[in-house]
């Protein structure tokens, strides 16, 4: 994300606290901030959720439409994910078409949903090769204080779980709930001077050397991963992150029902 200049003093303070195993807001290294999820937030969407993760605030909406399937998957519904880092969320976000940060966010959220096979896309086929259901996931960031990946992913999963496909208005039969097969959860952490911290705040992200998002299913199996930022991670660190993500995901999963 656009990194405004951080003062050396703030940077050093984070490092000093870390060397004592502490974080600026008093959390432990593997603690998430307070999460609140409000589903059915917007009536005009077939499914929606507003997620607050600490001071990060994200709104996700799902729209269902009918359309033509992709050529190579003629009998499957289509999932399309978009993310907008709108300027109201941060002085560093500019209006305009999605930049590389918005695109990465959208693609990581999409990957988590797709690879976990959360939605039974085959059940979204109306007429093979001709008509299928299109599922649009739109992520809007409203307030930015770090860890958009997890806030957006929780929002997307919660929103999808609440979707009723509006078949009736399209004359395709009765409305039905979107066929959901699993509940994937993502966990994002950063590496700062070889300390791993989960659910980074904006300041922690600014100081971080590397970032890793791990998306797992109910069995704790890996479905999607994304390493970010310009630093590196050791295999040891990755293993520790995966193990911790599996553990933390269990609790987060309870929040989306």
């Amino acid at each position, binding site marked *: 994300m656009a990194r405004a*200049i951080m*003062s*050396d003093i703030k*940077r050093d303070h984070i490092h000093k606290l870390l060397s004592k195993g502490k974080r600026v807001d008093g959390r432990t290294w593997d603690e998430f901030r307070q999460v609140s999820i409000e589903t059915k937030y917007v009536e005009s969407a077939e499914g929606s959720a507003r997620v607050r993760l600490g001071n990060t605030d994200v709104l996700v909406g799902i729209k269902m439409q009918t359309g033509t399937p992709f050529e190579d998957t003629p009998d499957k519904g289509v999932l399309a994910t978009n993310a907008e880092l709108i300027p109201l969320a941060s002085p560093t976000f500019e209006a305009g078409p999605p930049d590389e940060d918005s695109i990465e966010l959208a693609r990581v959220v999409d990957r988590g949903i797709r690879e976990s096979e959360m939605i039974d896309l085959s059940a979204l086929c109306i007429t093979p090769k001709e008509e299928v259901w299109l599922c649009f996931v739109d992520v809007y960031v409203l307030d930015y204080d770090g860890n958009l990946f997890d806030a957006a992913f929780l929002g997307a999963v919660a929103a999808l779980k609440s979707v009723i496909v509006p078949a009736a208005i399209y004359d395709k039969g009765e409305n039905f709930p979107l066929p959901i097969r699993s509940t994937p959860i993502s966990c994002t952490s950063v590496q700062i001077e070889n300390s791993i911290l989960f659910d980074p705040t904006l300041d922690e992200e600014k100081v971080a050397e590397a970032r890793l998002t791990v998306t797992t299913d109910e069995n704790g199996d890996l479905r999607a991963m994304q390493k970010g930022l310009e630093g590196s991670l050791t295999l040891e660190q990755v293993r520790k992150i995966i193990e911790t993500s599996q553990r933390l995901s269990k609790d987060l999963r309870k929040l989306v029902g």
Partner: protein
Amino acid sequence: MKESEVMYKDGALKPVREIVVPGELLDSGKLRPGSGTYVSDGKIYASQLGIKSTKSNYVNVIPLGGRYIPVTGDNVIGKVIDIGPSNWLIDINSPYPAPLHVNEVPWRVEFGDTARYLNVGDTILAKVLMVDETKRVQVTMKDQGLRKLLGGQIIDISHSKVPRVIGKSGSMIQLIKSHTNCRIFVGQNGRIWLDGDIENIVLAIRAIRMIDEGAQTLRLTERVKEYLESVTKPSQ
């Protein structure tokens, strides 16, 4: 008891401060228009969201929010965000970036050698040297006590809360300093630098946040005192 008064525990009546919004009528002719106001048709109206306050014949509005607007003579804490061959650009958390010229620092800086003294990311204690009619701002470090700040931590609060953090004759900031043994500089621009034992810095910051974020301000000093006493011991 008038609606604009509130009864305190000791039975004394004290006037409640009035919150005004832009466009609200403040006075129809006896007072002079102060800051946060404007005049229209001989009447004085509020131009900002804030607290109506009357002082020696002027009616002012003390803003409750908004960015810091630099005033000559203010002590501010700035962050170096850019360097040129003969100046630095300082972010003082206001709508205008403030240049710091090589002539306004306590060192003798050769042309092009600026990075040796101050670099992007450094924090300085400076003073607003001047603000001209077009709002061009300049800062200086040429005064007693002004310098580059090292170590400690910086936080930003709403600049309108600065008087409250300082307190009546410095009483509030003194309370925090004595309980946490920290050096604390409060910039008029809402930026605060603290230095001391790292655990104490964290406590001092929490106390300051109580003041900055607290919507309920009754008994604020008492509550801050209670908090500090529960977590520290005052120094002798």
